[in-house]
């Protein structure tokens, strides 16, 4: 494998971009208070759930397809090194150049360097799921390069629409507040002054603007959903078709993709191309599917660079239980059915991406030492909706519980036990013996009756106060179940 980094040693900024990240609960509080965000998320979730269900339901063999998808992904990950070497060879033979980025900073440096080498001061970006992960936009801006995103969702966010798009942005969001969208798009320099608020006109305004940008672009940065090792073909799925323009019009194309996006053969791709669009947007096939292989003289980009991003992925591979998380094909179906994500959006999960799989991958890669990363596995009720829809059958709740175990083990190693550890240990000790347990039941009931009024407890002390912030607790009636059982006239069996 070729070493990608041109900078010799690692500078101090190497390693995952150190973004100060609050604990999930704190970040979620901010998101919960954003009524516009809540409305958009709710509307997206409702629409995408309906669409996914219909698209999956119309296939008689959906469950078999999921199983096939799981098997393909598992086999690929098991032999990832071999497939990556094959991919590098195919891409190189087809006229592309492959660069390896060990971490986010190296990827950002590589891309910036490649853009600089073209002598251009502007780039267009299209469908780069890793953009947030590697801090792409900031890195380019710092290097004095002007970035023009061409995803509609990203464009709207940039115009002040707030919500940064998810790893896979929802299809153009015209079911949202049209007046607000009109207000945002009217800010475009080339928008007509009397822009009406009907969806077709809004779409046209956005399209005109983006098309002008795309047609004049000389350098583009894009992502890839899959990379076929056999042929070196890069595959990009999108709803809008801007990526299609971005990969054909410019002279230089820089593609950034995680090493886990590799697919051995076209017949493996066939399975994943059935699973991904139906899971992501409920489309039978994504409206725009672009596949390109190397460079073709006189047609499309003259230079093709593929930046392959590790950024912790091989470390996840080494975790036997956690490895399954890398099966992910980034369809976002798990996020769209997640009741937590539906109320918080991406932001509280940090830069690697949100939703249930984000809550798994971030702590898997970054570790659980920091309070923020350690809070992510707990950002779930373990309701299981995600596991039911995941097209590659990742047991997300199981992985979350696995990671919670890792969090607790890391806390056990600390010299001073956490209050939670003390509480959990003493609860387990109490439950470990009948006498202790029954004594605790009795004293608990006494306390509960002291704290209650009219059969309800409205305020509890300490950590339990979080419960009574918004919920009552019933006061247990005197005697309890055991008292009743013992006093029964005919209590047969063991006593």
């Amino acid at each position, binding site marked *: 494998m070729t070493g990608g980094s041109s900078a010799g040693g690692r500078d101090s900024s190497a390693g995952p971009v150190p973004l100060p990240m609050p604990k999930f*609960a704190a970040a979620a509080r901010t998101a*919960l208070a954003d009524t516009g965000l809540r409305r958009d998320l709710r509307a997206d979730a409702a629409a995408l759930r309906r669409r996914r269900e219909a698209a999956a339901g119309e296939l008689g063999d959906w469950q078999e397809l999921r199983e096939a998808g799981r098997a393909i992904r598992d086999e690929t990950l098991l032999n990832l090194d071999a497939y990556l070497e094959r991919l590098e060879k195919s891409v190189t033979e087809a006229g592309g150049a492959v660069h390896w980025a060990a971490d986010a900073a190296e990827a950002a440096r590589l891309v910036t360097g490649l853009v600089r080498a073209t002598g251009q001061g502007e780039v267009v970006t299209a469908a780069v799921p890793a953009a947030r992960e590697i801090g792409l936009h900031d890195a380019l801006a710092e290097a004095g390069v002007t970035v023009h995103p061409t995803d509609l969702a990203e464009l709207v966010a940039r115009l002040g629409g707030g919500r940064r798009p998810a790893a896979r942005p929802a299809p153009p969001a015209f079911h949202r507040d049209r007046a607000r969208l009109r207000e945002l798009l009217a800010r475009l320099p080339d928008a007509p002054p009397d822009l009406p608020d009907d969806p077709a006109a809004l779409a046209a305004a956005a399209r005109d603007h983006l098309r002008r940008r795309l047609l004049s672009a000389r350098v583009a940065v894009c992502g890839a959903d899959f990379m076929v090792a056999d042929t070196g073909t890069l595959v990009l799925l999108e709803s809008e078709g801007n990526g299609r323009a971005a990969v054909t019009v410019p002279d230089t194309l820089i593609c950034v993709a995680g090493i886990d996006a590799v697919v051995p053969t076209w017949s493996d791709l066939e399975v994943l191309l059935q699973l991904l669009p139906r899971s992501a947007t409920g489309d039978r096939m994504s409206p725009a599917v672009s596949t390109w292989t190397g460079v073709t003289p006189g047609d499309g980009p003259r230079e093709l660079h593929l930046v392959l991003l590790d950024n912790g992925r091989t470390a996840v591979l080494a975790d036997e239980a956690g490895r399954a998380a890398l099966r992910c094909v980034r369809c976002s179906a798990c996020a769209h059915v997640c*009741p*937590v994500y539906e109320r918080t959006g991406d932001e509280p999960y940090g830069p690697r991406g949100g939703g249930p799989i984000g809550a798994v991958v971030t702590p898997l890669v970054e570790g659980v030492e920091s309070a923020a990363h350690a809070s992510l596995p707990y950002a779930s009720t373990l309701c299981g909706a995600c596991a039911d829809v995941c097209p590659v059958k990742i047991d997300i709740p199981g992985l979350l519980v696995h990671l919670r175990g890792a969090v607790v083990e890391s806390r056990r190693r600390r010299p001073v036990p956490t209050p939670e550890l003390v509480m959990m240990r003493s609860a387990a000790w109490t439950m*470990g013996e009948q006498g202790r347990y029954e004594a605790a039941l009795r004293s608990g009931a006494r306390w509960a009756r002291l704290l209650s009024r009219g059969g309800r407890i*409205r305020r509890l002390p300490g950590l339990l106060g979080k419960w009574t912030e918004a919920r009552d607790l019933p006061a*247990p009636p005197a005697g309890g179940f055991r008292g009743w059982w013992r006093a029964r006239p005919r209590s047969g069996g063991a006593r």
Partner: protein
Amino acid sequence: MRVALFVACFNDALFPGTGRAVTVLLERLGHEVVFPPGQTCCGQMHWTTGYQREAADLARRFADVFGGHDAVVTPSASCAATVRAAYARIARAVGDAELERAADGLAVHELSEFLVDVLGVTDVGAYFPHRVAYHPTCHSLRTLRLGDRPLRLLRAVRGLELVELPAAEECCGFGGTFALKNADVSVAMVADKVRHVRGTCADVLCAADNGCLAHIGGALSRLRGGVRVMHLAEILAATGAPAAAGRP
């Protein structure tokens, strides 16, 4: 049939009416109920919060207490799910092959499974003249896959008017320690659940797990929502006679 009742610590402490109802119901159907007094907690809270060692201790204890019984019945869907789906994982997490074997030998049934699949009854002779909505809890729905068993039991109850709960399959936001660790999101979720429940104009909200019911019921109570929550067992035990167990 001789049935061992695992009442679940949560019910033992807070909802004695549910254990009473299971006992009354199974005895009415002609079965003998025993209550192994050494039972405490299945370890669910420890396991789902990441305390694997403590969960393993409690799982071993559970296997000791219930290992010899041909049929163990519990009115807690999440505890049944813990024993059946999580014990093997707990055993593997702490490397305890003996626990894995012991867990495999446990015959734990959630109440509605036991009634419908093992006893083969859907009409348990109950009378409950109220408007009832049913909330399928996540463990009932996605781990145990109870399907329409609770609904079949409820439909056979005389006098009961079953109303459909919109967005029924969406989590209520309880999630055990989630309700404390992420209280704000949890409350945002239960707010929507409460909205749907109240929209049905039901008198009673029913489920197969008192954990979720304590959560939804706690929010309803705080808001003076005018809807009671009752465990499925308590409705099935009701006959209109005063002796039948109900939540006091």
